[in-house]
């Protein structure tokens, strides 16, 4: 399912003294199967934008098209079935846990769609497996008694159990330790690859953006400031830094290195392994 946004604007509190333009005439296309990363400073409209993707927010003007479903300010299609296909994981999703046991909480989503009991328990097992939670060990635990990282996984599994075609993640790793952070993102990336679904990740972390994205969207003050592949985005280092964002550490390192070496190292390298490989290759080629 492609996500196509046309001329989308969103105004909060229309007609009150608290009126605020959150999205300002946005045009976007997120192709099916892509890994899209949305970056931007706090308040740039990222969260508002993603809430349009499953119809939680309705456009003030413009159009949002997700697969076959079109949402405009006047059109009110049934969104229940859309939300099964578009899974949205909010920031700090552990705050949405409410059931007595982990198993029941993860089953909440599938049960809302009247799936048969057997299929639901299969889905719960699968989802727990996907996020790396041992089914036998955790199924009867109270989700409220788990550690922060485990809660996060339970919440994530609660969305994955719906088997969405588009998965939207709003800073899924905020507040986790570096190890847990990396593991969750790696798992999600492998899933993205394997299941061929569309992933949309909102993050502040440039390393993650560079590492996983096919496509990066940079938001600023409610509009799209830049978009393109990681290489295209991070080559415009000055522009990125101007709006208060940072470059990935590895890109900064390469740029610094390039002041000393000729010919310059390409800046489309975003993993340490690839960079080392490149340097070794150069080293060998350089030896007479």
């Amino acid at each position, binding site marked *: 399912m492609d996500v196509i946004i046309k001329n989308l604007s969103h105004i909060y509190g229309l007609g009150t*003294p*608290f009126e605020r333009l959150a999205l300002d005439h946005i045009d976007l296309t997120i192709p099916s199967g892509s890994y899209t990363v949305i970056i931007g400073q706090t308040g740039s409209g990222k969260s508002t934008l993603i809430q349009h993707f499953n119809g939680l927010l309705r456009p003030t003007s413009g159009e949002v098209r997700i697969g076959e479903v079109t949402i405009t300010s006047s059109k009110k299609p049934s969104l229940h079935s859309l939300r099964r296909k578009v899974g949205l994981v909010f920031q700090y999703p552990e*705050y949405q846990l409410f059931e007595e046991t982990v198993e029941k909480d993860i089953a*909440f989503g599938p049960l*809302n769609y009247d799936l048969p009991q057997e299929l639901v328990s299969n889905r719960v097992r699968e989802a727990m497996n996907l996020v790396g939670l041992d089914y036998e060990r955790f199924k009867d635990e109270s989700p409220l008694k788990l550690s922060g990282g485990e809660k996060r996984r339970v919440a994530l599994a609660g969305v994955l159990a719906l088997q969405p075609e588009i998965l939207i993640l709003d800073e899924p790793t905020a507040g986790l330790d570096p190890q847990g952070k990396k593991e969750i993102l790696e798992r999600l990336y492998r899933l993205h690859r394997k299941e061929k679904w569309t992933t949309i990740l909102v993050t502040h972390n440039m390393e993650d953006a560079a590492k996983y994205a096919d496509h990066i969207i940079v938001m600023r003050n409610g509009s799209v400031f830049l978009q393109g592949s990681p290489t295209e985005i991070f080559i415009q280092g000055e522009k990125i830094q101007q709006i208060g964002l940072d470059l990935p550490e590895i890109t900064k390192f390469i740029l610094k290195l390039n002041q000393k070496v000729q010919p310059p190292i390409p800046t489309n390298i975003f993993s340490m392994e690839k960079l080392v490989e490149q340097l070794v290759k150069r080293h060998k080629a350089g030896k007479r």
Partner: protein
Amino acid sequence: MNLITQIPIGQYVPGRSFVHQLDSRSKLLFMLLFIGLVFWAEEVDAYLLLVGFTFLSIFLSKISISYLGKSLKPILWIILFTVLIHIFMTKGGDILFAWKWIEIQEEGVRQAILISIRLILLIVMASLLTLTTSPIDLTDGMERLLQPFARLGLPVHELAMMMSIALRFIPTLIEETDKIMKAQISRGADFESGNIVKRGKNMVPLLIPLFVSAIRRAEELALAMEARGYRGGEGRTKLRELQWSSKDIILLVSSIALIISFIVLKGWV
């Protein structure tokens, strides 16, 4: 569905207008006086005076009438109900309309109109108070005004603190509700259809996380307050002292003028 756009009626709108700059104590005291006057008024002249004064206050507060009008929405039914009761139940004066056992008399219509004006005036003025006074000023003002009762053992400071914390957390809780609601809707929850029992049951995924986070917040807040040395009102000084200004004197003068004109209208002089 978005709760955030439904900003609670009466939430403080920051501004620098005449009404905004009045001391919260004088606004509170004036509110009490105004309530008294509204219930005292019976003559049409007196009502005109109060309506005029209310419009003047709205004008001076620079808050749009249409926005203020929204604050009347929730009480529309109460007004309608009182109007109907009065029209049919209050007897006296000429008969205006009669059909079978239904009889509308002059006094009934008169009362219906006056009572609804009374209600509207009270709500508008009360909204104006909260719209132009920040919660902190409001509770500060109350604390000061209630200070005499502290001698009688009333925990004035604690009450004021409880109130300002409660007010402070209304927007936070609304935001939280919105967030959890959206998260559950994203998982296919349905808060809008079904009968009352079903709807009540559907609220569980919303209410439990909300209570959990409210309790967590309360705990964190208590800790944070204690960590910064809070130990109740004893010996606590204020960062911002409330101050009477020339504007409050204007309000005082107009209050006296209002009272005198009422006395004149009542024919007591």
